[in-house]
Structure formats: structure tokens, C-alpha cells
């Protein structure tokens, strides 16, 4: 039983990583109806920038601040140079544009900071310890804490603040939002900034585990089943589905894997996603399309 919990907790910790990536997608999709292919590349860029600043021997807080600064510049440039000219165009065009952003970010990141995989150490100690026989370590717990804090502040921001409410309005009806005086471009820029911050946290989390490398840009694809399960525009959905996928795939790999020759981890999330789609086409928490008849 202890072993089961150990695997479960490991899976959940993995799940937090997925949640973070999915969260970035969900935020942007909610606000501007764009499936942002560049979300993974944003994490890569944040990771690269952070490593870069740390190599320039910036203190950690300053390096983080500068990284977030870069994400803010990125958010505003995306909104004003890419989204603004494409307002009111078919969604497919915006989707394609985010592909462009993805390649651009990867290119820029690598031409500045090179293509080598880099270790990222932000100085969180990794001390293992046991609680009731379950093995844990301080690094994972710290990240779980940071992620929880991030999510709690997002929920508070969207539910309780004037800007958060305005962003929710924008996600429901762009033109009506404009008619009450909410500037759309500003609302989108704020959303992209938030998504940039989330991407930074995800980039740091993944980068510290796996090193900052090109493949970080593709963690995005790990988020795909998470989004399907949680509902593409739901913040709680992204979090919970991330945890489900993380726990599910790890448990499946450990307990079912040996009977079928392993490798379940790669497709198991899609299996859950299919199952969810079958019963709940908008995902577990997706915004229902309210149809009045």
C-alpha cells in the first residue's frame, strides 16, 4: 500500500507540471479563442532566458524579474503585432499565426542562448525524506506549493478583481465587452502576460528536472489530452485534469505496464481523453455552450 501511495504522489507531482502547461493554454483560449501553439515555446524561452541571466551571475530574484519582463514584452508584441491585425479573421488564421510565433521564439531563443541543453539550478534543495514510509523530496514539495499559490492567486484574480471580471466578460462576448468599454487589446495583453508568467513557472519546473533544452517546447503536446479532459477553456479543469493524467499514467505504467510490456505512459492520457470525450464532449469542466431555444 505504501508503494501505491508513493507512486500516486509521484504521479500527482508529474501532474502538476502538466497542469501548469495546460493552464497557459486554457487562459489564452478563454480570452481570445486562440489555441496558442507557442505555449510550449514560451516555456522554453523563459527557461533559456532564466539560465542566461543566471549565467550572467544575476541574483535569482533579478534573473526571475528579467525573465518575467521578457514575457511581458513578448505578450504585448504578440497582441499588437500578431493578434491586432488578425482581429475578426477566421480562428484558423490566428491558430496558424501562433505556429509562426512558436518557430520564431524557438529561433530567437536558440540564436541568443545556443542549442545546448543546459542545467537549471535555482537553488531549491533536493532533500529526500519519508513520511509514514512514503518517500518525498523538498524540491517537489516546493514546486507543488508554488503551483498551488499560483493557481489560488489566479482564481482570486479572475473571480474577485475588476480586471478579472472584465477578462471573463471578454471571453464570453467580445463585442459586448467592447460595448461596456472594455478595451479588447488591453484585455488580451493582460491575458498573454498571465499566460507568460504561467509559462515561466512551468519552464522553470520542467527545466530544473529535465534541463533546459529544445524538447521543452514540445511539452505542449503533453498538455493536449489534459486540455481535452479538463475542457479547453477551464482553469480548474486544466488543474484537475493535469493531476488526473499525471496520476493515471504513472499508476498505469507501474501497475498495468508490466503485464502488457510497458510503454503505457505515452498513450494512456489519450485513452482517458477519449473516454471523457465520449461522455462529456466539452470536457469535465468545459464551458457549456448555453443554447437557448
Amino acid at each position: 500500500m505504501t508503494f501505491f501511495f508513493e507512486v500516486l504522489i509521484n504521479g500527482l507531482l508529474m501532474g502538476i507540471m502538466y497542469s501548469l502547461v495546460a493552464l497557459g493554454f486554457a487562459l489564452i483560449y478563454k480570452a481570445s479563442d486562440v489555441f496558442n501553439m507557442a505555449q510550449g515555446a514560451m516555456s522554453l524561452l523563459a527557461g533559456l532566458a532564466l539560465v542566461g541571466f543566471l549565467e550572467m551571475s544575476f541574483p535569482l530574484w533579478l534573473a526571475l524579474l528579467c525573465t518575467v519582463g521578457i514575457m511581458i514584452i513578448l505578450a504585448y508584441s504578440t497582441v499588437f503585432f500578431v493578434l491586432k491585425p488578425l482581429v475578426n479573421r477566421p480562428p484558423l488564421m490566428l491558430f496558424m499565426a501562433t505556429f509562426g510565433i512558436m518557430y520564431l521564439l524557438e529561433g530567437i531563443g536558440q540564436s541568443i542562448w545556443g542549442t545546448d541543453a543546459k542545467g537549471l539550478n535555482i537553488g531549491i534543495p533536493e532533500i529526500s525524506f519519508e513520511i509514514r514510509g512514503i518517500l518525498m523530496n523538498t524540491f517537489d514539495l516546493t514546486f507543488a506549493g508554488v503551483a498551488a499559490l499560483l493557481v489560488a492567486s489566479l482564481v482570486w484574480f479572475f473571480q474577485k478583481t475588476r480586471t478579472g471580471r472584465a477578462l471573463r466578460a471578454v471571453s464570453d462576448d467580445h463585442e459586448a465587452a467592447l460595448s461596456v468599454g472594455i478595451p479588447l487589446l488591453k484585455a488580451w495583453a493582460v491575458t498573454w502576460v498571465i499566460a507568460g508568467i504561467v509559462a515561466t513557472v512551468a519552464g522553470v519546473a520542467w527545466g530544473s528536472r529535465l534541463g533546459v533544452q529544445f524538447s521543452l517546447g514540445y511539452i505542449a503536446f503533453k498538455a493536449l489530452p489534459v486540455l481535452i479532459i479538463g475542457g479547453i477553456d477551464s482553469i480548474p479543469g486544466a488543474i484537475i485534469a493535469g493531476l488526473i493524467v499525471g496520476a493515471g499514467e504513472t499508476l498505469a505504467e507501474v501497475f498495468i505496464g508490466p503485464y502488457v510490456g510497458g510503454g503505457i505512459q505515452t498513450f494512456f492520457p489519450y485513452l482517458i481523453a477519449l473516454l471523457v470525450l465520449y461522455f462529456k464532449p466539452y470536457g469535465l469542466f468545459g464551458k457549456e455552450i448555453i443554447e437557448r431555444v
Partner: protein
Amino acid sequence: MEPAPLLKVNNIEVIYEHVILVLKGVSLDVYEGQIASLLGANGAGKSTTLKAISNLVKAERGEVTKGTVEFDGKRVDRLFAPALVKMGVIQIMEGRHTFEHLTVEDDLLTGAYTRGRDKKGIKEALDRVYGYFPRLKERRSAKTGYISGGEMQMCAIGRGLMAKPRIMLLDEPSMGLAPLLVKEIFEIIVRLNKEENVGMLLAEQNAAMALEYAEYGYVMENGRVVLDGDAETLKNNADVKEFYLGLTEIGKKSYRDVKHYHRRKRWLA
């Protein structure tokens, strides 16, 4: 001397998508505290006129290409829609655009977006809206996607009131509502006009109702104002009676004229 109009639309032309000419020179005035109505059949250009004033046309890839719009003596046709809201020009869009996943109260509060952090003023405004629409207060925590059509229209108007309007551009508030509700909505509009001193420009297909409550009317056809006058005068105008109020004086017009008009009307729609 006559007072200057609060809103002055001066011979505007609106083009959608750079090629579709929809308004072909529309002029109208709304005076402070007045209720003016804009009548016309489907596709006459009523909504486009309102959106040209509030500058929401831009969001639909439309543009005011000629003429001017003045509000309170200042030219506003080049302003950004939120700037107009801030000045007190509020459009209540056709078809009850509430934010369906927001609660009634949150939806109303978005109406005060341009008022920033004026907490006290916003709270007062909210109470005032609940005073006019007690039903909204009862349903304050329901999502607007699940309230009735009449409540949605109330919510849309109430949300407009949250912005400290000086003029409201109401686009077919009666659309799809039962006659009793229409009457209720119109009576609230008159109260807002009197008690809050909000000027109203009311686009309506329901001409009988609109002329009942408005002081002045403009009749649009095919992107132009073809007739205007006091509500009383318009009500007694033979063409308005026949084509918009549905009161035909049999015998005075030949059947062919009517048929001819209907044919024309279909072309316009």
C-alpha cells in the same frame, strides 16, 4: 435660441469591409433628455447608425467614411469605443448580449468598468439598478445565460445604467418579448429618461410602440433617413400609418400602390 443638440449625427456614410456601402448620408439630432426613435424595416440601417455613433462598427470591420458625429459639442467619430462609453454614450446592443457565464450581478458590474475604482459610486449605481429592476436583484446570483429573455433585456439596460450614461442607444429592446413585457421595458426607459436625465435614441421596428413613448422620430429606408418629425406628426402621416403602423385606409390607396411598395420593401430587406 434652441439649445444645441446633445448628439448630432451629420450626414454620415458607413462602409463595411471597405466595399459594402450601408449608410448613405444619415443625419439626426438628439437633445438632452429627449427620447428620439429610429424606425425602419429589416436592413434599413438602424443598427448600423447606432454602431456608427458608439463606434462599435469598427469591431465589425465597418468605418464611418464621410460625415461627422458630435457629442456634447465634441467630434467623436474618430474615438475608440471605450472612450465613448467613458463620455456617457452607451449602446445597448440588439439581441440582448449579456455575458452568459457571468452572474447577473457580475454582468451589471462590468457595466461600470470605465468608472475604475469608484467603489462607492458603483455600489450606489448597483442599488439604483436593483431599484428599477427588482427582478434582477432576486436573480443576482444566477448566470445570465439561464435567465429569461425579459430579464436579459433588463440586465442589458441595467448594465448600461451602471456606466453613468448621458445618452443610451437602444437597439430594438422590444425584440422577441411578449407585449406586456415590452410595455414594462418601455416604461422603464421613460423613467430612466425622466429620473436619470438620460437621452435615448431608440431603434425599433415596433413603430407603434416607439412613437407612443418617443417625442421625435426618424424613419429610415435603405440607409437613408426618409422622413422625420414629432411623434404626433409621424403617427398621423399617411405613409407611416400604412407601412409602419399597419393602418391602411382602404379605398384611399389603390391596391397596386401597396403591392408596389411591398415589392420594394422586399428588395430592401
